[in-house]
Each structure stands twice: as structure tokens, then as C-alpha cells.
């Protein structure tokens, strides 16, 4: 068996006196979609933030193949002052040394792959929720992370858009990307999860399909 792309071992994280993660352990392999279920406030987002390196965990270890995990925030967090295409190209050009024309070509490709190439010049505030999410996914993928984290991706989607997103994520998994999705949407978990974990009291349990 090949080594997991994402390896989370006994991660503990406290905020103040409250222990939010009390020994979280799971792995994700290549092409796998791991869905973490749990009510709001259970610490799903905290797991993703710890994996993304935004929150420091107190103990345990997190290993991500390729160094850094990509993150799609619940509220997208697109750079407000940049167009959709500029959002996608910013990091490749400035943080990863990609030439500008190459980055733009790849950015357009990504936007096209998610059906939002016609919105390339639009500012984030001009995009619909679904469009903004697709741009945010494109932005995260533009720097080629092996692991993509999605926080409550269905929160602002109607059922049709939710099905489309599910198909899109399955597509990404088929291309070899590893996905971790935090959600409280059980239907969405059934739609696309290769494995579902349930977070309760700061620890994960396996959900029987």
C-alpha cells in the first residue's frame, strides 16, 4: 500500500480552556474524498484550519504530501480588489515564480474547467455564490496542492448547484486529487464521499455506509 497523501495523527488543539480537538486521527489516500460530518461548532472547520496551517495544533502531527494543502473557505474569501482571473493568477505569479502569461493561460483553463471563464474579468462582489465558489476552487488549484480542503461547500447552494458541485469534486478525485470536505450536509456526504467520518466531542468516529 502506498503512503497516504494526508496523515493526521492524534491532533489536539485547545482554545483557552476549551479543548476543541481531542486526538483526531485519520488518513486520506490519493483520489479519495473524505467527508467530515458534524454539527456546527463541533470543530470541523478547526480540523481543516489545522491541516491548512492556519491554526497551530498543540500536539500530534499533520503530514501533507506536497507541503501545503489548498483551502476553499466557506465564504470563499476571494481577494476583493482583484478580478476572478487575477485571484487565480496572484499566487502562481508571486509565490511560485510562474511566468505571468503562463499563469494567465492556466488560470483561464481552470476557470473554463469550472464553467466560469466568462466571469474572468468580474470582481468578487459581482459573482453569484456558486460562481464565487468555483473561482475559489480554481484559485486553490492554481498552485497545484495535492490535498484540497473544502469548508461547508454546500452552505449557500441550491439542490441543483449542490449536485453539480458533487460531480465536480468527484471529477477532481478521479484526476488524483485528495479532498477533505467538512460539512453538516449528510445528503452531500452520501453523494460524493469515499469515506465519511463523524466528529463528536473532539474525536472522529467512522460512519458505516
Amino acid at each position: 500500500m502506498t503512503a497516504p497523501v494526508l496523515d493526521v495523527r492524534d491532533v489536539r488543539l485547545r482554545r483557552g480552556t476549551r479543548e476543541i480537538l481531542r486526538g483526531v486521527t485519520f488518513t486520506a489516500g490519493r483520489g479519495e474524498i473524505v467527508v467530515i460530518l458534524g454539527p456546527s461548532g463541533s470543530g470541523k472547520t478547526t480540523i481543516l484550519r489545522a491541516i491548512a496551517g492556519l491554526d497551530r495544533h498543540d500536539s500530534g502531527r499533520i503530514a501533507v504530501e506536497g507541503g501545503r494543502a489548498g483551502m476553499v473557505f466557506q465564504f470563499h474569501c476571494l481577494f476583493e480588489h482583484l478580478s476572478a482571473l487575477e485571484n487565480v493568477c496572484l499566487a502562481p505569479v508571486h509565490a511560485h515564480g510562474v511566468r505571468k502569461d503562463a499563469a494567465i493561460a492556466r488560470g483561464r483553463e481552470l476557470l473554463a474547467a469550472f464553467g466560469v471563464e466568462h466571469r474572468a474579468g468580474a470582481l468578487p462582489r459581482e459573482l453569484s455564490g456558486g460562481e464565487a465558489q468555483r473561482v475559489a476552487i480554481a484559485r486553490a488549484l492554481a498552485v497545484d496542492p495535492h490535498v484540497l480542503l473544502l469548508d461547508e461547500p454546500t452552505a449557500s447552494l441550491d439542490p441543483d448547484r449542490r449536485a453539480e458541485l458533487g460531480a465536480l469534486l468527484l471529477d477532481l478525485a478521479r484526476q488524483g486529487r485528495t479532498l477533505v470536505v467538512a460539512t453538516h450536509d449528510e445528503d452531500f456526504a452520501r453523494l460524493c464521499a469515499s469515506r465519511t467520518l463523524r466528529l463528536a466531542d473532539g474525536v472522529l468516529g467512522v460512519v458505516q455506509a
Partner: protein
Amino acid sequence: MSQIAKRFIQLLNAARARPLAAAGLGISLFVSSSSAFAQTPPDFRWAGDAEGGAPFVEADPSRPDVVSGFDVDIAALLARGLHRTPRFVMITFSSIDQSIARGDAEIGLSGIEDTPARRAALSTTLPYYEFREVLSVRTADAARFRTLEDLRGHKVATLSGTIAYEILLRAERDHGIDALSYDDDVHPYSDLVLGRVDAVLLDNVLADRRRRFISGFTIQPGTVAVGHYVGVLSPANAPLRDACNEILRTAMRDGTLERIFRRWNVWNDEQPKLHARLLAGDQVAPVVGFDTSGSTASLSAVDATRRYLPALLRASVITLILSFLSMALAVAIGVLIATGRVYGGRTIRAVLTAYVELMRGTPILLQLFVLYYGIAAAIRLPAFAAALLGLALNYAAYESEIYRGALHAVPNGQLEAGRTLGLSEVQILTLVRGPQAFRLALAPMTNDFVALLKDSSLVSVLTVMELTKQTQIFATNLGSWVIPGTLCAALYLAMSLPLAAVASRLERRWKAATS
């Protein structure tokens, strides 16, 4: 009441916050507290400027309501002759004419020059003292700068609103000198010794006095022009003027005036000649040796406006250049301060916070004085540079607060998105946080720029010939603020209204963008 007043004056004095303000306040309290005594003869209210100092009018440092000087003695002489009690009213020198016309005091006595303009606008007494306009230069330059003609291309300073300033303006046209006007008669001499100016033209009484305190300059023996000191009264007060003239004539005849001037060491050979001519009934011309017919005061309002408008426009350009440059510098420094306060360590944050609070918590006027005069011994900044730097350093504090607020207003999610994409903190600041904060800061910045445009008028105290300073000179020479004030206001509005429009447009655009 008077006990409380005294205590208040002592406190003000101890604080030494503004000796002049303390003096003015002290006097007004004194006047109001003494008005309770109905039996005392009506006060003879006379106006002078204690900042002018000895030998004219000088305030006792420990008791600002007590003044001394030859003008004080002459006021006492007049009061005695009128069987009234002299009461000193502190008025800024350049405002004495207007104050007399308004009725703040009955007579102004403070080394006030006899000019055709004063004779036309006010009642003037007999000239009681004759002075000579003399040129002072650094001792090392005594051989090469003997007259105004020798000073082509050099800066010559004087007190604003004086005959000497009119002479310098004429010399600017005739001999190519650079005339500089100060609001007091001390700094022209200190700047002369420092090398900021190359000569000072003022009357011999002021020059002699200054030489007792400042060394390093020489008074040239030549006389540039001859003038006289007079008392000024409102035009409606001619009977009182005539009574004062009679008292002055008697004092000339019986030697009282001579004793007063001897007491203050300003008696010389010119005075008995002047007194003899006056007692013989001769007319004495206000100024000898300088043709005052071309002066602004003798022009009609329209002609005066036509004459001064180019100067006002030039001064507006100075105001604009000064404002743009200092704003640019303030923005640059403000960005650095804000960045330091948001990202810096504890020490950097503490130092920058102290700077911002110091700049916002002290008057900009004081900062300008310190920058120009206070540190002159160590760093001798030219007036324009000091003005530019003073405005920039002050406004940088305010700008930094705008940027700090704007940086904090950028949502954390924007920064975290940058981090997950692998951008460094510096890149997040320059590519994400900075540009977004700048948009938020744009409208308040434009508002601040309008404020700076108007605050730039404060640098007139550093002899920078910007719009307000030029207006002041115009008003002093014209003897009225109506036309100069209106023109000045129109020019400031012409500069600030477009900026205000830009500010509100930016604000609207940003509001539309964020809603």
C-alpha cells in the same frame, strides 16, 4: 475676585504656556475686577503690544499686567494731562489700527509709525519721536553690504506692515533684492546672525535694542529713510487727539518728553530739532527719504486689488506646491508608521504610538516653531523646508491612524486566503491587505488633504509667502481686511472645493462597492 484673578495670572505665568495670552487674559481680568470701583475717574484706555518689548512697551515677567517703556510713560503723561487713569490694553501690534477703529481702546501707542495711510484712515497725534530706518548686516558683510543696492539677489528681512517693508518691496523692484516679512522684530535679527537672511531693515530704536541682546551684526551708519512715531485714535476722536497734542506740546516745551526718552536711552540730537519744528508750527512730513505716494494705502480698492492679485495668485501656487509635497511626504511616512504599528514588535509599536500621540497632542504651530527656530542652532532648515517637513511630520501622524484603521478593517479571511496560497506576509501586505486598505483610506485621506491645504496657512509664521501671509500683508498695507479676506477665501475655496468633490465621489464609489 481680584485675589482669584491674581492667582489665575500666577498659574498662567507659572505654566508659561503662552506669555502673551496670559498677559491679555490677565489684563482683561484686571479691567473687569477694577470696574467695580465707581468713584475712580474713567479709565484712559490705551493700546499697545507688550511683545514689542522695551523700550516701547514691556511687560514685567512676574506681573504681566504691569508694563513699562517710553510709550507707557507717554500714556501716563497724557492720562495725567487729561486727569484720568491710564489703563493698558494688550493688542497685537499688527491689529492696533483696527482695534482703535473698533473702539477697543482710545489711543494706540506702541512705536506706531506715522504714514499717509494712517493719517487718512485714523486721527494721528503729533509725531513725538523721530527715527531712522537703518540697515543691519552680519559684521563679516559690513564692507560689501552698505546699502540696499548692494543686496541684489539677497534676502532682506523686516517687520510686516511697516514703512521698512514698503521700502523693501520697492527695492525688490528697483534693486532685485528679496524682501522677507516677519511678524515680530526679534527673529529677523536672529535669522540674520544664523545666515537665513543677509540684511535687516528696521528703525534705529529696534536695531539698537536688538544689538544689546544679539551679537554678530553691524548697523550701517547710513539712513535709508526717516520716520516718526505717533499715537493713533479713531477718526471720530479728533477732540481727544487735539487735547493729547496740547499735552505733548507742553511736554516738549518743559522737557518732560526729553526726560522720558533719556530715561529709556533713546534721546538723541534729532529729537530737539523735531520738537523745535513742531513747536514752531511747522508741518512734519510722515516719511522723509522714501516716496510713499505709490504705496497701496493711497490706491483705490480696485487698483489695490489689481496690484495685489498677481501676488495672491503666486502665493496660491506656493500653497498648492507646499500642500502637495507635504501630503506626499505625510502619506509615505504615515504608511511606514501604520505598518510598524500593525506588524512591529512591542518596542517599535510603543515608539510609534508615542510619536503619533505627541504629534496629535501638541499644537502644529508649536511644532513649526520648534522645527524652524528651536533646533536652528543644530540644524538650520530653510523656511520652506521647515514648513514642508513640519506639515508632513504632523499630518503623517493623522494619516498613519487612517491607514492603521484601514489595515485592521481588511477581513482576516483575506489574509488567511493569502497564507493558504503560499504568499509570504510581506506579499500579503503589499498585494492583498495594502491595496484593499488604500481603497478604504482614500476618502478620509482626501478630506485630510483639504484640511492640510488650509493648515498650510500656519507656515506663514515661518516667513513662507503663502496665500494667508500674502493676504495679511495686503490687508495691513490696505488698512482693511474686506477685499483681501474675500479674495483669499475665494482662492482657498477654488483649491479646496474640487478636492472635497473628489473625496465625496470616492466615498460614494466605495460605499457602492461594499454594499
